[in-house]
C-alpha cells in the first residue's frame, strides 16, 4: 500500500462515514471541553497549569464506577432509572472530583503560596500530586485494566439515525451534559458575585484583595468548579471507554491542548478548543498508520506544539490579560 493510497483511503473513509466521525468528535470534544474548563480557570487565577487536573478527572470516573455498581449491581437500568442514575453519577463524580481538586490545592499549592515559593516549586509539587494520585488509583483499582461503571443504559444503545449513521445515546448525553455544565460554569463566572471574585483575582489579585475579595476562598471555589466539571466528564468518559489510572494523564494532555488552542485563561475558548480538538482527533483516526490509535495522540501533540509556537494566546486570546 503506497503512501498516497493510504491518505486517499483515509479521506475516503471520512467521506463515507462523515457523520459517525462527526458524532464521535462532538462527544469527545464535549468531554475535553469540560476538562479544559478546569485548566483554564485555574490558570486564570493562579497563573499556572494544574498538572494534577487530569487525575482529578480520573477520580471522578472511579467514583462513578463505585456508585453505579453499588446502586445497580450487574443489572442494566432502563427508563427513568437511567436518567436518575446519570444525574446521580454526575453529582457524585463531580463532588468527589471537586473534593480531590480542593485537596490538591490545600496540600500541593497552599503551603507554597503561603511561603511565596518560586514557580518551579509549584510545578514540581503539582507533578508530585499528579503522580501520587495516579499511582494510588493504580494500587487500589489496578493498573492498565479498564473498569466500567454499571450499565446505566444498554451499552451501544442507538438513539436516532442521521441518514444511515446511528447516533448513540452516550453521544447525546455527553453533548447535552457538557453543554449544560459549561453554560452553568460560564454563568457562574460571568454573573454571580463569586464569579466576579474569580475574574477580579485573575485580573489583579492584589487589588482585588484590597477590594475585599477573599482570595483563598476564591481559589478554592475555582478548583471546585473546575473539579466538578472534570468529575462529570470522568463519569461520562467511563461510561463509554471505562476508566483506568492512566486515563487522567492521557485525557489531561488532550484537554490541555484544547485549553491552549482556545486561549488559556478564557472560559469560552476552552469550550471551543475542546470541540475542535475532539473533532480533529476523531477525523484523524483514519490517518493512523497500521490502525494504531496512538497516532491520534501524536497528531494532537503536533497541534499543541504548533499552537504554542504560532499563537500561544490561542484562538480567542486571553481575556484575563496575561500573555504566554
Amino acid at each position, binding site marked *: 500500500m503506497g503512501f498516497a493510497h493510504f491518505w486517499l483511503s483515509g479521506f475516503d473513509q471520512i467521506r463515507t462515514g462523515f457523520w459517525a466521525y462527526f458524532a464521535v468528535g462532538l462527544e469527545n470534544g464535549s468531554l475535553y471541553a469540560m476538562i479544559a474548563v478546569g485548566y483554564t480557570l485555574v490558570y486564570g487565577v493562579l497563573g499556572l497549569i494544574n498538572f494534577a487536573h487530569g487525575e482529578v478527572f480520573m477520580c471522578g470516573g472511579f467514583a462513578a464506577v463505585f456508585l453505579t*455498581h453499588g446502586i445497580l449491581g450487574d443489572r442494566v437500568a432502563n427508563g427513568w432509572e437511567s436518567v436518575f442514575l446519570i444525574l446521580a453519577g454526575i453529582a457524585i463524580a463531580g463532588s468527589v472530583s471537586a473534593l480531590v481538586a480542593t485537596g490538591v490545592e490545600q496540600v500541593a499549592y497552599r503551603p507554597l503560596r503561603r511561603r511565596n*515559593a518560586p514557580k518551579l516549586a509549584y*510545578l514540581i509539587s503539582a507533578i508530585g500530586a499528579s503522580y*501520587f494520585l495516579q499511582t494510588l488509583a493504580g494500587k487500589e483499582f489496578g493498573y492498565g485494566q479498564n473498569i466500567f461503571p454499571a450499565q446505566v443504559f444498554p451499552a451501544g444503545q442507538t438513539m436516532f439515525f442521521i441518514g444511515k449513521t446511528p447516533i448513540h445515546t452516550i453521544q447525546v448525553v455527553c453533548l447535552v451534559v457538557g453543554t449544560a455544565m459549561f453554560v452553568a460554569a460560564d454563568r457562574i463566572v460571568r454573573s454571580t458575585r463569586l464569579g466576579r471574585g474569580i475574574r477580579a483575582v485573575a485580573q489583579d489579585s*492584589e487589588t482585588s484583595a484590597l477590594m475585599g475579595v477573599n482570595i483563598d476562598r476564591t481559589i478554592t471555589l475555582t478548583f471546585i468548579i473546575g473539579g466538578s466539571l472534570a468529575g462529570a466528564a470522568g463519569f461520562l468518559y467511563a461510561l463509554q471507554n471505562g476508566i483506568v489510572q492512566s486515563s487522567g494523564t492521557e485525557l489531561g494532555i488532550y484537554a490541555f491542548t484544547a485549553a491552549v488552542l482556545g486561549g488559556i485563561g478564557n472560559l469560552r475558548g476552552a469550550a471551543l478548543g475542546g470541540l475542535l480538538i475532539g473533532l480533529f482527533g476523531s477525523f484523524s483516526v483514519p490517518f493512523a498508520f497500521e490502525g494504531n490509535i*496512538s497516532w491520534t495522540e501524536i497528531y494532537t501533540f503536533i497541534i499543541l506544539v504548533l499552537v*504554542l509556537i504560532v499563537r*500561544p494566546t490561542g484562538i480567542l486570546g486571553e481575556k484575563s490579560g*496575561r500573555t504566554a
Partner: protein
Amino acid sequence: MNLLSRSSLKRLLAALLLAGVVTLMTGAPGGYGVPAYTGLHGSFLERVSYFGLFRTQRWFLFLTLGIIAWLVSTYYQRHSLTIRRRLEPVMAIPTQVMQRRTNRWVLIGLVVIVTIFIPKLVHQQFWMYLIVEQIGVWILLALGLNVVVGFAGLLDLGFAAFYAIGAYATAWFTGVLPTPAPFNHPIPTLWCIPIGVGLAMVFGIILGIPTLRLRGDYLAIVTLGFALIIDDFVGTQSGLTGGGEGSLTVPKFAVHVGPVHYTWGISPTPYYYLCFLFVVIFLIAFTALEYSRVGRAWVAIREDEVAAESIGINPLKYKVMAFAVGAASGGFGGVLTAGLIGNINPTLFQYQVSVNVLILVIFGGMGSIWGVAIGAIIVQFVTSYLDNYQPWGYQLNDLYMYIGALLIIMMIFRPAGILPSRRRQREIQSFEVDHEGHLDEVLTGDEP
C-alpha cells in the same frame, strides 16, 4: 490552648485524613477478587471494602496513626519555638564541618576509596548488579537532568524519552531490532555511545528550539507529551521496535583497540568500574561546566531572563544548549543501560521514569552536583531495597506514589534539597522574601 478548641479539632481532622492516606498507601492493593474480611458481606458497604483501608485490622492502624499525628502536631504547636531553638545547632553541624577545606578533601578521599573497594566489600552478585544498574546509571541520568532543571531552571519531564532514544538507538545500530541495522551493518555496542548520545541530542534540539521560547509550565507539559508519545511508540510499533518485548540480545560492551581485547562478561564488577569511570568523568565535566561561561549564562537566565538578555546573553541559545546536554546524558544513560542489561523493553522507559529521575535531582538539591549524586545514591538505594524486599506492605508498582508524595513534601519543607547548592538556596530565599506581600506576583510566580 484547649484540646477541644476549634483549631485543635481542625488539626485532628487533618491528622485523620493524613492517617487515612498513609493507611491506604501501605495497605494491600484493592481488587474485586480478594474476599472482604470486614463483616460487611452482602451489604452496600461491601463495595467499599474493596479498599485496603477497610480490610482486617487496618482500622486500628488508621485510628492510632491519626491520634498520634494529632498529639504530635499539638505538642509541636505549643513548643515549636523551643524545639527549633534546640534543633538548630544540631542541624548546623554538617555545614560547619564541611566548611573546612581539609575536612572536605578528607571526606572526598574517603568516598573515593570506599567506592573503589565496593566490589570487594559487596559479595552478593545480586547487589552488585543493583549497584551498577540502579545506582551507577541513575547517577548519570540525575547529573544530566540536573543541568536542565538545576542549572538552567527548566522543567523537563521528557527525560525518559531521551533515555529510550539512547537505548533503542543502541539496539538498532547493533542490529538486534526487527528492523535491520542501518546499511545492514551492525556495529559494536561501545561505538553506539556517540551515536546514541548524538541522536538524543538531535531530538533534544528539535524538541527544544520551538518549545524553549515558552514559559516553564508549557515546556513541562510539552516534554511530558513527548515522553508519552515515545513511550507509546516503542510499545506499539512492534515491526520497528519489537513492541512490548523489545529486544533481549543487545551485545555486551567490548574493546578491541590494537593489542587490547576485552569483553565485559557476566560478572558485574567490570561494569561497576566502567560506570564509576563515567560517573567521575560526568562529575568533573559538569563541575567545570557549572563555572564556565555557559554555566554562568545559565545562572543569569535562571535568575532574571530579561536582565540576562539585556547584557547580551541569548536565552534561547543557552536554553537549547542546556536541553541538549540533558538529552545527551539521557541518551548516554540509555546506551549504557542497553549495554549493561543486554535487554531493553518499553517498561524501562515509561514516561514515569522522568519523574523518577526528577526526584533524584530534587531530593539531592537542584543545581548542586554533589547533592544530586548523593541524593541519587540514597533514593536509588532505598527504592531498590523496597522493590526487592517489599517491606511494610510495599508493592512493586507503588514506587511513583511515594515519589509523588516525596516531591510534594520536599517542595513544602526543603525546596532546595538535602544538600542544597548555596547559590540556589539563596535564590529561593531571596525570591520568597522579595515577593512577600506582593500578592499578584505571589499568585502568579515569576513571569519570564
